[in-house]
């Protein structure tokens, strides 16, 4: 260690209590930031996973333009064989084919316009949580059975229950009149009113028969083991599209643009609060370093008389602050990782959330994860602001006059 570094290090410990108080403020802020940001990122991950798990999946194969304008005729041909071949090629991914149409669903008393989804009953539970949210009855079975599951709100609106029949009236792929009578075998309750009011599911084979799909469908839904894995597998899925096909693969961000916007909005408000915390710490450092510089004015006069330039003195103060900041960074990051890891092992349950989560088929505890980004981002900003706070005391040294400084006691 050279003498300037040694001098900076020892200067820090001239007033141990003051230094530890400042380091303590940084450590507290950094620990809190690492924990809060890790929690926030973990929550976002859970939020994305749960939203996508409900229905959307991590990605979908669709006909071009279908995402923005869902027209019946924008189909994926031979959708079941395509899904089967992808399942064979990507055994780690969960893949299911769907068809989608709009129909008038009528009970004895009432009629409502709803979205009818044709699903593969054996594969749909792997890409969607709706089959697990059946509150009454069971999920659809078989490929061609004329049975249907409906949302709880829709069942209430239509005044129907298990075993009742619904008449579906719609338009087929070829423009012809599509009609069928299906039996309600299950009622699901996702807790999302729009989903529970507007969606019903029937087996894909039956869907293709009713709507004259000729083996076609509208979406191949793909779920990867994790969100990160999904990003990695997307280009491989794109590459696996049939030769000459114009099918497109959309990731979750494109399928659910509102989700990312909601996360961004939440992040903005959270980071505003973090910003206030960082500024408070910066003022603490400013106070410490300003005190430290003022009380050493005489000493700075001496070293200037020995030939040190104001810039070199400024660098000494910045070096001291850097060391101070690094101690706060390391201790705070360790504290944050330890705290996050504790909740990573034991899980975190927010009061009132457990019951709600259980109702909606969501995990009742959040298991936090400290990622390199969540560990580094907060303490780095604190460190940066610490250096900025020290700039003022350091810049003051440029105005220092050796003789006047030496007269100071």
């Amino acid at each position, binding site marked *: 260690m050279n003498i300037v570094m040694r001098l900076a290090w020892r200067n820090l410990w001239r007033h141990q209590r003051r230094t530890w108080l400042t380091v303590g403020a940084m450590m507290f802020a950094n620990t809190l930031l690492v924990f809060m940001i890790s929690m926030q990122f973990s929550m976002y991950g859970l939020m994305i996973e749960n939203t996508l798990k409900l229905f959307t999946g991590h990605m979908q194969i669709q006909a071009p333009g279908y995402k923005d304008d869902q027209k019946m005729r924008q189909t994926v041909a031979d959708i079941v064989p395509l899904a089967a071949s992808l399942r064979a090629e990507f055994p780690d991914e969960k893949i299911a084919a769907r068809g989608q149409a709009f129909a008038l669903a009528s009970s004895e008393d009432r009629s409502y316009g709803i979205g009818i989804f044709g699903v593969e009953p054996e594969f749909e539970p792997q890409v969607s949580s709706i089959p697990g949210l059946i509150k009454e009855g069971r999920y659809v079975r078989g490929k061609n059975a004329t049975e249907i599951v409906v949302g709880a709100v829709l069942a209430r609106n239509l005044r129907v229950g298990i075993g009742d029949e619904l008449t579906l009236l719609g338009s087929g792929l070829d423009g012809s009149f599509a009609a069928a009578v299906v039996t309600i075998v299950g009622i699901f309750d996702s807790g999302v009113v729009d989903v529970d009011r507007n969606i019903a599911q029937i087996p894909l084979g039956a869907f293709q028969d009713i709507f004259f799909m000729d083996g076609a469908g509208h979406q191949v839904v793909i779920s990867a083991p994790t969100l990160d894995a999904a990003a990695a597998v997307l280009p491989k899925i794109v590459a696996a599209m049939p030769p000459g096909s114009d099918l497109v693969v959309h990731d979750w961000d494109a399928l659910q643009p509102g989700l990312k916007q909601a996360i961004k909005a939440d992040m903005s408000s959270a980071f505003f609060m973090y910003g206030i915390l960082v500024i408070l710490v910066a003022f603490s450092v400013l106070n410490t370093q300003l005190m430290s510089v003022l009380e050493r004015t005489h000493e700075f006069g001496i070293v200037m008389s020995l*030939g040190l330039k104001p810039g070199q003195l400024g660098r000494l103060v910045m070096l001291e602050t850097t060391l101070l900041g690094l101690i706060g960074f390391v201790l705070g990051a360790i504290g944050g990782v330890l705290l996050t890891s504790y909740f990573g092992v034991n899980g975190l349950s927010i009061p009132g959330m457990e019951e709600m989560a259980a109702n909606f088929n969501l995990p009742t505890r959040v298991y936090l994860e400290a990622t390199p980004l969540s560990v580094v981002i907060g303490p780095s900003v604190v460190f940066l602001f610490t250096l900025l706070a020290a700039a003022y005391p350091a810049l003051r040294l440029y105005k220092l006059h050796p003789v006047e400084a030496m007269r100071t006691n």
Partner: protein
Amino acid sequence: MAAVRCVDLCKTYRQGDQDIKALDHVSIEIEPGGFVCLSAPSGGGKTTLLNAIGGLDMPDSGEVWVADRRIDQLSKGALAELRLSSIGFVFQAYNLIPVLTARENIEFVMQVQGVPAAERAKKSMAILEEVGLKGLEDRRPAEMSGGQQQRVAVARAIVSRPALVLADEPTANLDSKTSDELMTLFTELNEHHNTTFVIATHDQRVMGYAKRLIRMLDGRIVDDIEQHAA
């Protein structure tokens, strides 16, 4: 070429509503290898003159030359460079850096000068031995007596063999024995290395060591005597 040349220096301080003339048309010339004492009662202008020669304070008018450079027009940075390379300072209050050991205090200036570590270590140990502090190199200022601290300050001032050493009341806080030892050290350095010394003092014993004694009063030179050193 003179080691120090001051031409018609004037410096006025404002104290309350009063103007104090610290330097009043002062002109002196000191040859290389000179051993000069500036003597004056408190407020007589000796420290102001010393500070002007060292580039620590600027005169209101006049010229200050160190070796062949006019320094009263130099920038802060250039003055710092000059002090670092050519001038050593010894202060009344020692003014060591309290968190550094004796050896680190001496090496600090050399490090700023860019002297390699091995050379710094060699020079600092040699100078510590020269000023009689061998074995105390790892002590911090608070662990040394006033005399020992002043010797470290002297070692720090002369370790880079500056052409000029400026000392402001260097013996004010020392007992007579330590003062004599310090002045003997100054004399030896002056004789062996031809270092120019300018010492501000009102200590008669210190004046006795000087080859030349300049007396000041109210910012003016009132006497300039060549004398045989003690």
